[in-house]
């Protein structure tokens, strides 16, 4: 139960951050943010900077690829890979 809450919190935190960067889009939808044009490369830079600050990590530069920011799931996996505990 506790694990589920943490995962939910991480998901919600990611959505909140995305909404702040591009308030005109609904990031709770299950769609590909890159293909739908909801995030461009400069949004990804803003997103990485905000994720680094909020989760106290430094996302590896090699991981800053569009596919890692295409969905909430892929962003979550990226955070876990870069040291955020589930």
């Amino acid at each position, binding site marked *: 139960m506790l694990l589920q809450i943490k995962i939910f919190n991480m998901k919600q935190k990611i959505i909140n951050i995305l909404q702040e960067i591009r308030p005109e889009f609904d990031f709770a939808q299950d769609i590909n943010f890159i293909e739908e044009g909801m995030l461009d490369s400069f949004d990804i830079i803003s997103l990485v900077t905000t994720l680094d600050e909020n989760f106290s990590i430094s996302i*590896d530069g090699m991981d*800053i690829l569009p596919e890692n920011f295409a969905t909430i799931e892929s962003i979550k996996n990226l955070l876990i890979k870069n040291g955020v505990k589930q």
Partner: protein
Amino acid sequence: MNLTFHNKTITGILTVLPSKEVKFEDEMESYNFSVAKSLKLKMAMGYSKHRIVEDGVTISDLCVFGLNNLFENELLRKEDMDALILVTQSPEYFMPPTSNVIQGKLGLKQDMICMDINQGCAGYEIGLFQAFMLLDQDEINKVVLVNADILSKKVSKRDRNSNPLIGDGASVTIVEKSKKPNTIFANIKMDGTAFDALIIPAGGFKTPSTPETAAMIEDAAGNFRSLDNLVMKGDDVFNFVQREVPPMIEDLLSRAGINKQSVDYFMFHQPNKFMLNKLADKLEIPHEKMPSNIVENFGNASGVSIPTAITYNLGERLISESYLICLAGFGVGLTWASILLEVGQLKFNTIINY
């Protein structure tokens, strides 16, 4: 490719920056993006202000101004200059070399070598390599390396990818034979298959400038530029840097038998704060050892960015102190190169305004 040089040293560095300063906020409305989005980008990338030349100013103006300053202050004598290496992507003419133009303007002796090298982001390293090699000649004792670029003239003011970060400037670095024996470790790699990652597509012999090449076209991200303008594949360049630079630095230090903690400063090319901080994190180098404050204060003037980082961040400390410094340049070409050397006890290490 690994390189090793012996018994060479830098004895002075001067950076010449245009006095004209343009603030990011003043240009923001030229970009096809919301103000809020541009301000977020400003924070992440470190865009704040940049120095650009006034119309009509060329690189020889900056270089002659800098060299005359050294002559007037008796920090350099004309007769001691055995070679003048100019690294630039902003030549005054296709022919002759701009280094010859500078030689003529300054009235330098004929018994010397002048040469232009077309390089950019790694232009400081490549210029130093050439200086070190020339100094192996018996009759060459002092090489003046000049890096200079005014690429603001080739960037579209409506291109948010490039315009906020581009700066103009020149630097003069004096390179001599070292009285104390030393070994300088270096390496360099190139990948010409990605030649168009950073390019000015028109204006050369392949695609001469015409009214058609000057037509402004909107790209997928909403930037406007023409074929006469500089274009950068930002994502590709970022990924190239993150992939290639960390192993290059690890290899350099390993070959020199030096651990990262023993290096006092990592003076890298200055594309933007975000990229440099990511490199520092990947290499596990404290951010204070890798300054990333040149774009935000002056803009990125290509091969001038490293000498600017050294003069701005270390200034007079390098007159009295000596530091082990790792230099790294990466970008146009693609080219990536690094050098590990002791720098200190300089005759001068300062910035002047043109």
